């Protein structure tokens, strides 16, 4: 499965590139990731979030990096869900903003893992990636993922409708959410 998405961020390319190149930042806006840890200069360990398939982790390696312009990576050969990605940063015509173009390729296997991944992406798989980039934009432009009462859990907001009502959270909900 191949997915592409794009957004425009009102920050310089060098800054957006630097944020992405620090791969440990990816889980702040990519919904399917729980943790990314750098294990070397170009290598890293990625842990998926539960809905993506429980206990999935894989190693990845950066194949190409051009500061301010482009990063490509690929999972190691033994990954459960082999995947690869490229993100390009190009100056927008306004001379201020940066266009972010991302392309991801997933080699979805059979079995339970394949099913979990397919379910995670649902009927409109690009929607996930669009939402990921929206959150990247929020973080780069405003410092945080934006929360509302209906969608209070930031990147875990993407439950289908109905959401929780647009009214403040109870103590119990807050406590439960903090641990999520």
């Amino acid at each position, binding site marked *: 499965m191949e997915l592409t998405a794009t957004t*425009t961020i009102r920050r310089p390319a060098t800054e957006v590139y630097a944020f992405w190149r620090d791969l440990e930042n990816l889980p702040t806006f990519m919904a399917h990731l729980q943790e990314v840890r750098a294990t070397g200069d170009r290598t890293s360990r990625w842990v998926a979030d539960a809905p993506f398939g429980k206990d999935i982790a894989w190693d990845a390696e950066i194949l190409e990096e051009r500061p301010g312009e482009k990063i490509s990576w690929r999972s190691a050969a033994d990954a459960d869900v082999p995947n690869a990605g490229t993100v390009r940063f190009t100056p927008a015509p306004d001379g201020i903003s940066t266009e972010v173009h991302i392309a991801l390729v997933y080699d979805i296997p059979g079995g339970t893992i394949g099913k979990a991944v397919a379910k995670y992406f649902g009927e409109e798989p690009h929607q996930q990636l669009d939402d990921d980039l929206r959150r990247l934009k929020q973080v780069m432009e405003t410092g945080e993922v934006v*929360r509302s009462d*209906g969608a209070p859990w930031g990147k875990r907001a993407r439950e289908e409708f109905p959401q929780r*009502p647009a009214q*403040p959270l109870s103590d119990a909900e807050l406590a439960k959410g903090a641990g999520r």
Partner: protein
Amino acid sequence: MRANTWAGRNKVEVRDVPDPRILNKRDAVVRITSTAICGSDLHLVDGYVPTMQDGDVMGHEFMGEVVEVGPDVAAERLRVGDRVVVPFPIACGACNACAAELYSCCENTNPNAGIAEKMFGHPVAGIFGYSHLTGGFAGGQAQYARVPFADVGPLKIESDLADEQVLFLSDILPTGYMGAEMCDIQPSDVVAVWGAGPVGQFAMDSARVLGAAKVIAIDKEPYRLEMAERAGHIPVNFEEVDVRSRLLELTGGRGPDKCIDAVGLEATHGSAHIATYDRVKQAVRAESDRPHVLRQAIMSCRSGGVVSVIGVYGGLLDKFPAGAWMNRSLTLRTGQCHVQRYMKPLLGRIEGGELDPTRIITHTLPLEEAERGFELFKNKEDHCEKVVLKP
């Protein structure tokens, strides 16, 4: 705390809900001293704006006192104890839309942007108490509200103006003003405003302040037309006269130079035939909006004129007079108000005595009586024009 909530189509209910907390670092919590019921709330209650849910706290026009600020709100911008009016669109102040002062199109404040994008082609900003399509933010018909990006939107009131004088800076005064501003008013202009509700009244006053030669008020409620007349505008009752003929008469056959739609998707119609056609289509969801006013404004406007739309439309409409629009060089301008753009200058005009927002307030009720307030406002009982609620 107590809050007025959506309880299904045509039903609101004041209930107990949890107190709001800081969820993002640039939030504030405001203790609300005054809040109001808006024509937009009627669209939500009537079920014409989709994605409302049982229990949603309503209200997007509110002001009060800051009681808590998040860690990233700079003290020179806002601190506990400040008295603020809160603009209804939530804007980040940092995206390209905000940089262009298109605050109601902010690209960052709607966590449900994906859904809005499906409906509108591109997402729109978050709005307080205004469905999940615009983010699912709890509203301000309550004792307290959480205000995101509190360092961007809220306007501090440092003078001793009463709540009633500044409350409407949250929405309807800027909205009416933007409706007039989009008309690019010239001194020779005759401006016709459809709708003598609160938004229409402020569009009329703004047209006058911006220098229009003559301002015409179109509605069917005699008391609302009288209110407009007392403010110096010319009333036209669409149930008593044919609007187009009357407008031609009032403009020497030219038609109004500028036309403002301050009614939106729930317009009623003098002609039973067309009204039935649109009602039926709306009922079977083949058309979500009833565009009587938009059609009439386009047909009435003089060639080369401007039709400025501040009445809310939600989805699809039928029989749009594209021929008149195109062949007669009309300009169509519209938007949810970019409130943040107008708050300060309009505060100046209030302080200077040029605009008197209090003139439309007919009812002040305790929050507990929100349901009655909605009834009065919706059914135009007891000459109701605008309801202010006190939590």
